[in-house]
């Protein structure tokens, strides 16, 4: 096991963990605003499908990103309208969004592939070239470190930037403080003059944008530009669990997404000659670990690290 093997493992881990990071960040902000949105998986699917479709027909990378992010936002607005304005049950609404989103993506995918002569759909090569790994002159070619730090695609760097900004926003900015107040005690925030509904809508919208972005990533990086059914396959749910694991903290989310990224790629880095683990076990691994994480964090929970009290409750000013 030489250094190149390890560095390529780490590279793969980061690449696998990035979509998780986007989705997790989005849901952290959403939940900090007191909204439990279980529709992350569905919004990611919508992002994948919309982005892929736009990319397939327009071959334009900017439109692609806009489509993925925009559709994620639109999808999240369904959730926002239902829970914030119409005060529907948050858990069930999120599930509805997932069911809808998954169905929508399958529908779009089946429609495109049915209409294609090869029964598959692949994105144009020139379009795909916009997303190849970065090559910064000088830095990228540093042996080992170059690959580890400077050869990622643009999404990866964007995810780190967004994490750090989110952390600053939550803990050092008055609007982040207002958001946290809305999530903990909407009545107190309301009485302080904060527009609770608008804050929630914005937080939910950000979550949708991030899920959409994760979808874009999956479409071009994970799936490599080829339409794949079930491309998200549970990542959205892992992201929701990751929010708990990260203690609703954007900085810790980076660490969490790295760990779960590792779980996803482990099977390719433990050769069968060393130890033969069946595929199904590798497949189950992220979910088993997530379940353990959920259980352990609830067993050892502390007072400071708790889900924002407002999650699951819809605020109604006139409710007596």
């Amino acid at each position, binding site marked *: 096991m030489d250094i190149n093997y390890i560095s390529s493992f780490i590279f793969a881990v980061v690449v696998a963990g990035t979509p998780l990071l986007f989705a997790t960040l989005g849901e952290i902000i959403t939940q900090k605003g007191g909204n439990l949105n279980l529709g992350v998986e569905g919004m990611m699917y919508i992002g994948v499908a919309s982005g892929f479709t736009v990319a397939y027909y327009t071959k334009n990378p900017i439109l692609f990103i806009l489509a993925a992010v925009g559709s994620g936002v639109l999808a999240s607005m369904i959730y926002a309208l239902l829970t914030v304005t119409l005060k529907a049950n948050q858990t069930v609404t999120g599930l509805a969004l997932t069911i*809808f989103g*998954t169905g929508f993506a399958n529908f779009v995918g089946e429609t495109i592939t*049915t209409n294609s002569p090869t029964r598959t759909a692949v994105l144009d090569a020139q379009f795909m070239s916009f997303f190849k790994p970065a090559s910064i002159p000088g830095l990228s070619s540093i042996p080992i470190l170059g690959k580890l730090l400077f050869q990622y695609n643009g999404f990866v760097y964007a995810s780190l930037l967004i994490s750090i900004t989110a952390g600053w926003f939550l803990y050092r900015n008055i609007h982040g403080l207002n958001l946290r107040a809305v999530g903990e005690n909407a009545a107190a925030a309301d009485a302080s003059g904060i527009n609770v509904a608008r804050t929630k809508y914005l937080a939910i919208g950000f979550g949708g944008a991030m899920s959409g972005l994760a979808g874009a990533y999956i479409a071009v990086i994970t799936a490599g530009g080829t339409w794949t059914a079930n491309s998200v396959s549970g990542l959205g749910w892992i992201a929701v669990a990751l929010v*708990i694991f990260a203690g609703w903290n954007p900085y810790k989310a980076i660490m969490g997404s790295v760990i779960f990224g590792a779980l996803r790629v482990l099977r390719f880095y433990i050769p069968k000659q060393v130890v033969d683990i069946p595929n199904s076990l590798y497949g189950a691994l992220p979910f088993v670990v997530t379940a353990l994480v959920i259980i352990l964090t609830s067993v050892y929970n502390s007072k400071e690290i708790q889900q924002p009290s407002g999650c699951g409750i819809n605020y109604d000013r006139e409710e007596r």
Partner: protein
Amino acid sequence: MLRRSPNNVGGREPLLRIVRIREENETRGILLRILAVVAALLAGGIFLWALGHQPLEVYAAMWKGSFGSVMSTQGTVKIAIPLLINALAVSLAFKMKFWNIGTEGQMIVGAVAASYFALFHSDWPHFVLLGVMAVAGIVAGGLYGLIPAFFKARFSTNETLLTLMANYIALYVVQFLREGAWKDPGAKGFPQIARFAANARLSLPLGVHFGWIIALLLIPAVYVYMKYSKHGYEIAVVGESEKTATYAGMNVRKIIMRTMFISGGLAGLAGMLQATGADRTLTDTVAGGVGFTAIIVAWLANLSSPVILMVSMIFAVLEKGGGYIQSMFKISASAADVLQGIILFFVLGFEFFIRYRIVLRNRGE
């Protein structure tokens, strides 16, 4: 001293306000739910029209595909059975405000347990075998549901996420068995599990496997259980407020675990029925998403057993019809899933009008 405010100071009263309704009305609730489904079908119709189809033609075709012939009716019923039983399972848990999203996994585990006996003890007398398989399915599903219940009861662990993870894990268990210990040696290419021996299959009264009789029996059973039994009362109280339940001397932990055992058990039974009755083998798709659809059904039925029967049939029509229109109109079969999601959105949205009213600005005092 007087600061200018961005909105209405010195300005007009807002145009629209929402007002909580104090006197809720059951009839209003039912009407609104029906209205929601109609609205959803309309929205779906617009969606179909945008794709270049005639909505009425498509809906009519869906109906024809579901009930047009004896065989299609049988097919629709076959789809409804696991959906109905799962929805009953979901309703039990939801009444307790335990968000059991895991009936999919509980169903799979039940199917696995039943399949063990089908594959390795197919020489037992027919009814004994089937009986044991049913019990195995119930117990396995029940235990699988008990695990998240235990953690919720003891540590307040989030049951939604845990049951979800359990779904995926169950899927991989089947894959594991399929590729390993239970692999059919006679299968060429794709690894799969052998078909069950005739002795392990359910009989087919009226052309549909025995499950439909069980499903019909379960409806009044669950209804009576929820409305008239002591357990049902306990479930209702715990669902409303654990504090009140404890105050009344109820053992909340026991109630949560017992109810989830039953919920998981019902799902497990559905799994056994699906494996022996419909599939005649064990595959990854023994549940096939029915766990999620069951949630929509239960919610739409407002957790009421008799209404669950009706709604399950409606959704079975959507699905069977969906398969039919795929070949007829080249519409993706996933259209049914999309439509189901839209229906749930509308139902959730319309529930707002059960609790609130919109008030227009007063014209003059």
